[in-house]
């Protein structure tokens, strides 16, 4: 019998996500994929998978997973407590951002996130599920991908793929984590519809702190803060929404579009979050305050280039081919 991970408790909202479902946005299908692509990629690299392989994304609370049918190598990234019960052994704590070999019968327990909102569980050989439109990523809103297009439930069994090479024990250097994510205000480029707002309102948007509301999910974050006023109304002729688009609806309260976003929208977009800061944004919790800082396109691409170079270096160290996300 092949190796499987059996879900004993699924956490609050756990879905399967690979690098994303690209090439269908013109048909209304968003890419999905991980909210924090850094943690997702590193978890995969540490178990010898391609960086964009399917892994579990857990939200706020991890869950518990039993290893059935044979041993496997796993890695969990994110700020969580990770415990394992293996047959004939006392329960022990495992390091995150590190590869571990688990024997059949082991049960992995992942707690509440101590910081951030999302943790990732990758397994060597990845999970074998049918690809839908070229991807294993789950889009629950359209019941697409993953396990029957839904979040995991207790009793689900996730088949683990065969591994060709033995996976060594690898650790991601902890001191590099903060460097990868960056700190401070979330970088944005103004536009594409910043001309719908006065200079004063743009300044107010960049000065204010906005609270991430409880109505925030993989589709997007609804923010609460000072209302940002339009010059003459919020409505545009609907156009494309990208990851990080910051729409200002009539209420003046910003909405940031994320991985499971609608592909088009009819509210003016004051700014767009830069690519390099999306993984950090994906870790914001409801109640946390987000602030924005405007950058130039050159600075934004420079930050993205630096992040990709660091991740590519890391992939190279382990002889794993990384891919652009």
């Amino acid at each position, binding site marked *: 019998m092949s190796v499987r991970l059996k879900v004993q408790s699924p956490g609050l909202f756990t879905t399967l996500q690979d690098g994303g479902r690209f090439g269908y946005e013109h048909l209304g299908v968003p*890419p999905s994929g991980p909210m924090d692509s850094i943690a997702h990629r590193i978890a995969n690299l540490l178990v010898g998978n391609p960086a964009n392989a399917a892994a579990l994304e857990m939200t706020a609370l991890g869950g518990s997973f039993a290893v059935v049918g044979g041993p496997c190598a796993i890695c969990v990234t994110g700020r969580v407590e990770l415990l394992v019960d293996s047959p004939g052994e006392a329960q022990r704590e495992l390091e995150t951002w590190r590869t571990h070999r688990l024997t059949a019968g082991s049960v992995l327990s992942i707690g509440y996130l101590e910081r951030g909102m999302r943790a990732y569980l990758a397994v060597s050989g990845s999970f074998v599920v049918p690809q839908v439109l070229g991807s294993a990523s789950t889009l629950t809103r359209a019941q697409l991908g993953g396990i029957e297009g839904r979040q995991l439930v207790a009793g689900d069994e996730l088949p683990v793929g065969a591994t060709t090479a033995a996976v060594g024990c690898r650790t991601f250097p902890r001191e590099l984590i903060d460097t990868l994510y960056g700190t401070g205000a979330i970088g944005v480029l103004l536009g594409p519809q910043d001309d719908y707002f006065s200079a004063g309102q743009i300044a107010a948007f960049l000065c204010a702190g906005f609270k991430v509301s409880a109505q925030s999910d993989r589709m997007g974050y609804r923010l609460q803060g000072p209302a940002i006023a339009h010059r003459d109304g919020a409505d545009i002729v609907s156009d494309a929404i990208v990851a990080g688009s910051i729409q200002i609806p009539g209420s003046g309260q910003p909405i940031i579009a994320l991985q499971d976003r609608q592909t088009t929208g009819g509210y003016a977009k004051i700014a767009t979050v830069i690519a390099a800061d999306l993984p950090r944004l994906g870790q914001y919790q409801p109640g946390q305050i987000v602030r924005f800082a405007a950058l130039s396109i050159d600075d934004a691409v420079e930050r*993205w280039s630096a992040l990709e170079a660091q991740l590519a270096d890391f992939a190279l160290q382990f002889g794993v081919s990384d891919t652009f996300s």
Partner: protein
Amino acid sequence: MSLPPTLAMPRFFLAGDRALTVEFGQTIDAPTNRRVQQLAARLNAQRGDAIVGVVPTYRSLTVNYEPLRISLDTLRAQIVAYLADEHVDTAPARRWLVPVCYGGEFGEDLQTFAATHDMTPGEVIALHSAPVYRVYMVGFLPGFAYLGDLDSRLHTPRRAVPRPLTPAGSINVGGQQTAIASVAGPSGWYLLGRTPWRSFDPQREDPFLFAAGDEVVFTPIGDEDYAQRVAAIERGEYLPQPLSSVLEDER
């Protein structure tokens, strides 16, 4: 470069550091939308590691690109070169005759909708099923088709309170638009009827029925016909098909 006199150079906007929006105008009209579709087709043919995706909408399109594979300047220059070679589009369009069961349980707003316009439900159905609609864009949800050219007598502000869940296949009217809903989802639009077709079905060989640029005509059907078609689709005996291509000249 030389554009035909009627074809103005579009405006470029950054949509973040990995997307470029090309805006052809501010209005919803077929000539503008055809320019969008033409550029989208050319960029889509180049899709890969550099040009990751193209999202054409009513009057603009957004190119998602990887800035480490293609620079913004190169991408913009390439688009400008395409536009130099722009022509008035005469590509044939697919035309779909979409069966719709209006009113009753499938179109629960039809009565109210007709009353607000001082019409009978029959008059609303006649006006709604008369035009050849253009699919201006597919967006919001997988396979959701936005149709333009709704008769102005049917223009209606959206409902004050959106419904949290409306069925797949709903034929909706909101503002100046009508749409074919692909999957169940929230909607603030009026529900006039429902089609037995599934415009998005991931199990089907081609999961998407409608593409931007297609033409749609609604054909009213009765309850029994609706039920028979649903059953036939479920048995796999009935696959929705477009009419053979209709040439631009005949539109």
